[in-house]
């Protein structure tokens, strides 16, 4: 097999580009700032990427099936709030509170899945509705007030396991499991198949509805994990948490090579995509670039990345 064919095979799910972009960004960042590769900053970046990356994991799978989930930011908020309320106002034990939050996320995801797969509402609309309901539900639940001041043992979720942030380890674990499920289980195969040719997949007898339902449930679960991690990191749950995160999650997936039309991409790439976005913000902060210039720099770099991504794909074909 010649090298070009080999590269093509490797890049079938477009992981090379985000990896390259990340490598380039890291090299440039390290040469621009002496603070970039310090242990402290590496820990910071790994903590910072965790929440956006976990949202992106769920989002990427929904996009792989050809859908979109606009509710992940709001589901993050409601799950985080439920966990917080259970701990602070109800006095529930920590594992129980966490289960409550995860359950809420899974439920929201299941409702999304039912609306999309059974009622056949386009996912864009169904999850937009869920976004509004979950955000409103959060406000009702918390009365619009933040819930804060959790037990040390809960905050430990945002602590360290050896040199590594626990948040990062959780996210990393989820990614490993998900990537394995995507590339080595029947479920993963059907996720790609539904994204590539939904009708054809249904014709061979695959229960497409169940696949879609599961994908949305998993996205809701990921959002819930993100909400609980955010609670621990901020030591507070607040009703506006996660506003606009759905767009960051979508951007991370797309930068990571996931095609918005479904069927193409991977979680490995998505993870690199999330890292690219986080490192970009981090290096601009380290260089003390003021707010207004940050917007311009970020916008330009993301645009350049997106352009090279689409060019790169054409080249590979």
């Amino acid at each position, binding site marked *: 097999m010649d090298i070009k064919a080999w590269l093509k095979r490797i890049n079938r799910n477009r992981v090379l580009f985000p990896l390259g972009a990340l490598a*380039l960004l890291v090299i*440039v960042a390290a040469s*621009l*700032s002496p*603070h970039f590769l*310090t242990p*402290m*900053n590496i820990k*910071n970046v790994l*903590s*910072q990427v965790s*929440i956006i990356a976990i949202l992106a994991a769920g989002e990427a799978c929904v996009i792989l099936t050809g859908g979109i989930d606009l509710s992940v930011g709001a589901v993050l908020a409601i799950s985080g709030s439920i966990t917080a309320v259970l701990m602070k106002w109800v006095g529930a034990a920590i594992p129980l509170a966490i289960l409550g939050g995860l359950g809420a996320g899974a439920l929201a995801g299941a409702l999304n899945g039912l609306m999309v797969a059974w009622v056949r509402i386009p996912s864009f609309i169904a999850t937009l509705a869920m976004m509004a309901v979950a955000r409103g539900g959060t406000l009702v639940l918390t*009365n*619009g*007030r*933040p819930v*804060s*001041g959790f037990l040390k043992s809960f905050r430990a979720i*945002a602590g360290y396991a050896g040199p590594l942030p626990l948040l990062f380890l959780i996210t990393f674990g989820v990614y490993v499991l998900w990537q394995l499920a995507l590339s080595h289980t029947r479920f993963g195969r059907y996720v790609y198949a539904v994204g590539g040719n939904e009708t054809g997949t249904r014709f061979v007898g695959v229960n497409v509805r169940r696949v879609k339902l599961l994908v949305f449930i998993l996205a809701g679960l990921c959002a819930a994990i993100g909400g609980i991690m*955010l609670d621990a*990191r*901020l*030591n*507070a749950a*607040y009703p*506006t*948490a996660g*506003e*606009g995160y759905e767009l960051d999650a979508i951007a991370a997936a797309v930068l990571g090579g996931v095609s918005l039309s479904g069927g193409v991409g991977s979680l490995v790439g998505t993870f690199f995509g999330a890292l690219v976005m986080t490192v970009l*913000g*981090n*290096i*601009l*902060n*380290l*260089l*003390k*670039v*003021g*707010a*207004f*210039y*940050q917007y311009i*720099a970020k916008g*330009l*770099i993301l645009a*350049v*990345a997106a352009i*090279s991504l689409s060019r790169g794909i054409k080249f590979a074909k």
Partner: protein
Amino acid sequence: MKRLIAVLGTVLLLGALVWAEAPTIAVFISTLKNPYFVTLADGAKAAGEEFGAEVVIYDAQDDAALQLSQVEDAIAAGVDAICINPVHTEALIPAVEKANEAGIPVFSVDRDVLGGERVCYIGTSNVLAAEQGAATLIRYLALAKRELPWRIVILEGIPGASAAVEREEGFKNVFKPLIDGGAIEVVADLTAYFDRAKGYQVMSDILATTTDIDAVIAANDEMILGALEAIKAAGLKVGFPDGILLMGFDAIDDAVAAVKTGELVGTVAQAPYIQGYWGVEAAYRYLVEGWRPPEGTAIYPPTGALFIPTPVAVVTAENVDQVAQITRTPPPLPGTE
């Protein structure tokens, strides 16, 4: 790829430009979408130029998690002091704690953080500001020689929101003795959720029950401007001396314009510019001159921080033309004269 390198090169240049020996003061703003905080950032930048400190402005876009990340990054980049206008009073406690661990002094600006060590909190007391607004309204009622008792309407903000609670407290501090003495009669005391449309609606509901009203005071300008429209729609007269007297809060542009035309008797102006300016000035003097909040500095009761209150001006017909100047001229920082 070339373009990516070009962009990063530009970023490198920008980085090099701001690289200097002066102390670096990081200023974390909750959101630059709100003009109020843009003015605060302007004040911070002006103080940076005045004192020769390097001021870096971060915009958290109202996202507490993003602001925490920015604080982490600034600490990693080795800034010398932090001024923070937190997105959130509680969610940013971990950020302040991280700065404390790194030995970087923290100054909270406009809004305090509810934990961690802050050198001081530089902000407006909503209670004091509301007292000044209410007192000004009373002065105008007296000047207009209105018959006693004065019948007034109070429009409150979102129930439970800290600004609403504190402003209500300030109004009550002024009105309570007068109510008890029979000089003031409260026609209605209702919430309009800091919202202009709700202000209109609530005011028209009140006018349906009575038009015998001397004055309306609201916890923000949006509500008073809504009420103004409702009163005009009801065909009633507004303004000094013989119309209904209206007092707002925040001095937004629409409200200042209405003060100029005489439709509002006044609106309370906080001074975000001075808050930003004092934040950076205090941080700079703390680092370079060993400035500390002076002996006898009061405690801000809601948060327990040492409180450096910034001045408040009530915008009225008498000073409306100088208001921009007043709120942008920082008086000496307490403890420096």
